[in-house]
């Protein structure tokens, strides 16, 4: 029990609470991102209870699905040396989802494409990898080569999966489900810029969300991010996610290589926007739509127009 209370106090240590006009908020770190929960209530006990739930869930999902750990199901799958691994229902549901996304996107969304990170380092430099190196990495990609017969998954040797492309958005939606069981109050969950709002606030308004403006590029590749949020909107209900990061790219011979990689070629997507922010029914939907749009490159806006969703594309 002593150990347990020590853990408890250590955990509350990571949680910070603030209050604003008519709402309270809690802040913590998870999934390598600042996470916050805003609650349309001035009940400190409630916000504390919900914040604990949120923090537990965010950390649980991070522990379970992070590819930076060696004690979870992702590690087991990626290090099974060609042997099948049986997965729990939650992992199975995520793999099924990834399978759907692969098919819907004609192969552009591929959770096996993470190996490309070994050859592409987007540090603003001009170190574009050799074509042969990229090609070698590309040959270890391809979701159809994975044996996925729920609940068992078998990766060919040398391949790996990474659920990072949906993990944070999934954590937001999962947390929202848990919080909805505990409160009827309006809340906003924000995990590193992936958001979800369950319902309008008691005053009938939503929460004000700022969308980052594109930076001004200088020839050196430096980015001056406009600190003033350029556009803001009121979110009453739904999920928001952003794909892209104006700060990660390569610049060589005047050509800017975005960090959005096409798994079918192994090369960056041509002429993708700097970032895309999508508003959809759930954070997961918003995240996938933003990612798929980025992968369309120049066709990102046309793709999103066809989806009839609200979005902001920054070029």
């Amino acid at each position, binding site marked *: 029990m002593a150990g347990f209370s020590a853990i408890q106090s250590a955990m509350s240590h990571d949680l910070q609470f603030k209050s604003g006009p008519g709402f309270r908020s809690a802040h913590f770190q998870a999934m390598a991102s600042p996470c916050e929960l805003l609650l349309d209530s001035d009940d400190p006990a409630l916000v504390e209870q919900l914040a604990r739930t949120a923090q537990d869930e965010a950390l*649980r999902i991070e522990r*379970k699905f992070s590819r930076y750990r060696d004690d979870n199901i992702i590690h087991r799958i990626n290090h099974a040396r060609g042997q*099948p691994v*049986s997965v*729990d*229902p*939650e992992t*199975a*549901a*995520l793999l*099924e*989802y990834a399978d*759907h*996304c692969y098919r*819907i*996107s004609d192969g*552009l969304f591929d959770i096996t494409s993470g190996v490309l990170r070994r050859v592409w380092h987007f540090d603003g430099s001009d170190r574009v990898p050799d074509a042969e190196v990229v090609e070698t990495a590309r040959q270890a990609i391809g979701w159809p080569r994975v*044996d*996925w*017969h*729920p*609940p*068992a998954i*078998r990766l060919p040797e040398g391949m790996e999966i990474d659920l990072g492309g949906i993990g944070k958005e*999934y954590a937001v*939606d*999962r947390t929202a*489900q*848990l919080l*909805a*069981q505990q409160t009827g109050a309006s809340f906003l969950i924000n995990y590193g810029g992936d958001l979800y709002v369950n319902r309008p606030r008691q005053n009938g308004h939503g929460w004000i969300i700022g969308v980052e403006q594109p930076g001004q590029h200088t020839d050196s590749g430096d980015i001056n991010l406009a600190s003033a949020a350029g556009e803001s909107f009121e979110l009453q209900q739904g999920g928001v996610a952003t794909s892209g990061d104006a700060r990660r790219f390569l610049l060589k011979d005047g050509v800017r290589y975005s960090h959005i990689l*096409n798994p*079918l070629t192994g090369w960056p997507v041509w002429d993708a926007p700097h970032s895309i922010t999508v508003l*959809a*029914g*759930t954070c*997961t*939907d918003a995240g*996938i*739509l933003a990612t*798929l749009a980025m992968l*369309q*490159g*120049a*066709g990102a806006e*046309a*793709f999103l*127009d*066809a*989806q*009839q*969703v609200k979005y902001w594309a920054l070029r």
Partner: protein
Amino acid sequence: MQLTNPPQVRRKLALATASLLGAVGPAAQAATADDWAIDTSVLYYSEDSRVTAIEPVVRARKAIGDDEYMTYRLVVDSLTGSSANGAIATSSPQTFTSPSGNATYTTPANTTPLDPTFLDTRVALNAEWEKPLSRYLKGFFAINASSEYDYTSLGVSATLARDFNNRNTTVSAGLSYNLDTIEPVGGIPDGLTAMPTTTSVQKSTLGSSDDKTVADLLLGVTQVIDRKTLMQFNYTYGMDDGYLTDPYKILSVVTGPSSETLAAMPYLYENRPDSRARNALYWKTVHQFNEDVINFSYRYYWDDWGITSHTLDARYRYEMGGGHYLMPHARYYLQDKADFYNYKLVDGNIPQYASADYRLADLSTTTLGLKYGIQLSNDSEFSVRAEMMTQQSEGDAPFPDVDATILQLNYSFVF
């Protein structure tokens, strides 16, 4: 890669997301979640002018470790109404003594005699422990107990399930053993002796209680056929030993093979063999279309009482969207009678074993039903099921049809 005509994928995605977020309720998440998954239901079963049963059930399941669960189940049955006592309808009224021997009831002419003294409440408790024993081996261990005023049952079971072949094949083997004690009102009647027709005469008994054991061995294979299809094959061998007779059922004795005239000793208590070896082969297949699921099963049963039966069962789950679903259900059951089933007995020609229980006769049962369910939230669901059942005689000795209505309400939630 540029698309001239970008596809509309938002709806497909929204569906996939909905199933992702609905796939695992918080209860099924990490074993550290202290959630109980609770299923509650109440079943109303009513036979036309006969038995009515009301059965509330509560089932609670909780994770106690990694892939390790405890499940508890409580069932309460209450039965009221009348049940066929086994005697035939005759052209004159008939009088029977109640099982206690302290009362009589009379059946009008040309009416199938029903014993109206039916009134019973059964309480059953069951606990199951599901535990992974190794990477590919899982164990299920259960105990159960049930009690009603004249009947108690205690049982244990153990099943091992092992995965093979990339977990596409699961082989199961299980054993279960039950010990039941029956203490009928008025004692255990001596089989094939006369039922008194007045309260002044006592029935001849063989003591106040008796027992039976029920042992079952199950062997099964579950096979993933493809990503959307699952099949299951089971073989069950069962052995019942002890008192297998229904102490409340009788047979009418007539004066000749084609006669309807009752003999001097008109009613005899039934008598069944004291052992029964049962076999069943079962095949089930589940196939998922895009969202809808079809579920079909066939069971062939035979035992050394001479009963053989076929059961066909089909269900189709139709997803209406928005968390609503409809599930039509059809079931057909066809049975060949037990060797010792007799609609009536002929005086002077009494066999060693005999029963007029219509449930041992040549019969068929047709059930048609519809279930409607709605997902109220990520981890609560409500459903209602209505079914009509008709049981009819398939033999030359026609017992009247038994029609029943079944209504069931279900509510599942997590807390």
